[in-house]
């Protein structure tokens, strides 16, 4: 590598504003955009419908408990089950609460009563959250009724409470108490953004001008890693996501990652040998690479065959989840060294293919 050539590549890169716009400003723009998209931490005010066939003070107080919770917004009071199912199926409401006739009477006479929650399950993320909070409200109401029963049997209030709370159940959510989409998606997504925009610029520039390959590659990789660092800082300082990892270590890993991606990038350039086709192919790979990287669907549940194929063809699976865990928790996941070794082997193998492709092109 020669310094003069490296400087020449720097001049070429910065002479084209599109390079800076796509490779540096692009990931930063999308980090901010998606951060804004997910800026509401909770899915609050989930539309709710109620079918109260009891119309008692107990049923009204139960409904009030839901209405008072910030998670729900009571939008519909319906008059029959068909209507309740209909507003949920039409997505006008996500959760429906059904209180049967004689609800209060049955409870007071200790016959027990059943309240039903009907939830739109087509979106798992919303359905699970709506269900978890609904169950908690109903359990709290249950405990209150049990205590009043016991007090009615002349049990002292404190003891009644201890009987009803035979044992307490505390739940603590670590690292992201609010279970926000922002913390879940963005720390992984910034790597995908950097990867995609690095590929779409590097491959096009490589097809256009094959000179100074080493210097050109190094420049693009350095810019990619620096951009990742800037995205990391944007998450932390602008979007206020709690990140315990070190930005330099994370950017260093991204530098290594982009080095390991280089072989594939050169091969794509050689095979497609057309700027338009290369752009189309690289952009097209963003969604598939994210979907199959063990992020949306956990890697431990992926079939061995799929894991093997993905690991042989695209390197994102090696780094996206471990790096995300590192930047959020500040600790590397167990077995990270082996994963890193896998990434390096992947990089060497694809680099061998890429270099052969490059030499062939130069010879031609």
């Amino acid at each position: 590598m020669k310094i003069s050539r490296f400087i020449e590549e720097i001049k070429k890169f910065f002479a084209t504003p599109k390079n800076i716009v796509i490779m540096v400003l692009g990931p930063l723009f999308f980090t901010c955009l998606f951060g804004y998209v997910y800026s509401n931490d909770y899915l609050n005010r989930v539309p709710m419908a109620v079918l109260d066939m009891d119309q008692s003070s107990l049923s009204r107080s139960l409904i009030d408990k839901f209405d008072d919770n910030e998670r729900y917004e009571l939008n519909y009071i319906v008059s029959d089950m068909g209507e309740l199912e209909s507003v949920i199926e039409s997505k006008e409401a996500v959760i429906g609460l059904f209180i049967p006739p004689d609800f209060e009477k049955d409870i007071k006479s200790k016959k027990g009563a059943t309240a039903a929650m009907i939830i739109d399950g087509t979106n798992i993320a919303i359905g699970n959250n709506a269900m978890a909070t609904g169950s908690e409200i109903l359990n709290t109401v249950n405990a209150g009724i049990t205590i009043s029963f016991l007090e009615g049997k002349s049990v002292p209030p404190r003891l009644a409470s201890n009987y009803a709370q035979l044992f307490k159940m505390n739940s603590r959510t670590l690292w992201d108490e609010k279970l926000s989409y922002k913390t879940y998606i963005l720390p992984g997504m910034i790597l995908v953004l950097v990867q995609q925009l690095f590929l779409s610029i590097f491959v096009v520039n490589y097809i256009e001008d094959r000179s100074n390959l080493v210097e050109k590659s190094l420049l693009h990789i350095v810019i990619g890693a620096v951009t990742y660092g800037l995205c990391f800082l944007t998450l932390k300082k602008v979007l206020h996501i709690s990140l315990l990892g070190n930005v330099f270590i994370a950017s260093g890993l991204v530098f290594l990652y982009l080095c390991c991606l280089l072989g594939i990038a050169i091969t794509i350039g050689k095979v497609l040998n057309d700027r338009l086709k290369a752009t189309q192919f690289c952009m097209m790979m963003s969604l598939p690479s994210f979907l199959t990287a063990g992020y949306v669907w956990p890697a431990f549940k992926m079939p061995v065959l799929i894991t093997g194929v993905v690991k042989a063809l695209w390197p994102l699976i090696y780094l996206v989840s471990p790096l995300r865990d590192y930047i959020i928790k500040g600790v590397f996941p167990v077995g990270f060294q082996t994963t890193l070794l896998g990434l390096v082997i992947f990089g060497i193998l694809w680099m061998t293919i890429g270099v052969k492709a490059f030499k062939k092109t130069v010879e031609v």
Partner: protein
Amino acid sequence: MKKAIKQWLMPLILIFIIPHIINIGACYMMNDKQIKDIPMAVYMGDQTALTRQIVQSFEDTETFRIVKYADSADEVEASMAVGESVYGLVIPEDFTKDLKKYKSPTILTLIDGTQLSSAAFTRIQGTEILLTTKIGGMINVFQAKFDLATEDALHTAAPISITTRLLGNPTRNYINFLLPGMMASLIQIGLAMSTASIVTVGEHRGLDFEKCYFKQMLLYAMAGTLSILLMVLVQTTFFEVPFRGNILGLILLTFAFCNAVVALSMFLSTIIKNKVFATQVVAVFFIPSSIIGGYTWPLVAMPLPIQKLATIMPFTYYGDFLRSWLLEGNYTQYNHSLVTFVLMIAIGAVTSLMMNRLLSSKVVKEAIVLEN
């Protein structure tokens, strides 16, 4: 023939080959359908028959898989920090003794908040297991203390029994939830990028442009429709995704959706001369639509400006439709989506044609000036 292959090879790869390989791979990848065997760490500060029974009740479910018995509560947290487990159960010292003295000891559950896909589910399942144990214990206490019959004791311990019914996707099947829309989104991206470079101002003029425009629009929209239908066929035939809707309704809205995507993409191609740049702009517009379109994170939870931005993205009107059409067999916003697509097609076509006339006349004028 060679020219035709050259012309259609890349669209074929983008609209059919890549999406369908990914579709089969992703469906196969999620073939377990639910997230099961979630790794869990346990600290048993109290080793009694009762605590062993509690732990066993977690082990007996398909949801949890105990991967670590920790020596302290901190060790459970450490195990979660390094990703060894994503759910933790901490049973304190003297739990059983305190329970018998009615001191209400506390069982702590720890959830890895960074694993959103499993966090809410583990919270529901873990609470259910502990609640069942708790109610069982309360029944025993009430029977012993107040001489109640089992049923009375049950109704005292849990006066309201809660049933939950999940409509549409009762088994929380991830393929049903995620893949129909995600794969449609991928086909949309391939379709948009293929059409971003097919009609360029200056190459065609006047009627020639119009003919070419509508011919290409129809051809590509048909290709996109065919690809989405094929994707649905594979998912419903081989991966048990239900199909509860009407096939004609699916074809009609899919065709309208693909036309809207092509119209928008071709509009961009008429105003951007550089094909590579047009493709990049189209990609930047269409790739985020799977997020901004409200498919995984609902639109109502997004800030208002993003909700407004989503209104110009065709996928906003299609992703939810496709999932509901397959899982529930209906979609109340069907007509609204159809009308929106027709409007998008009309606006895209009219502005493209106007833009072409405007730019073509400019090119002609420039040519005349040059000639003179």
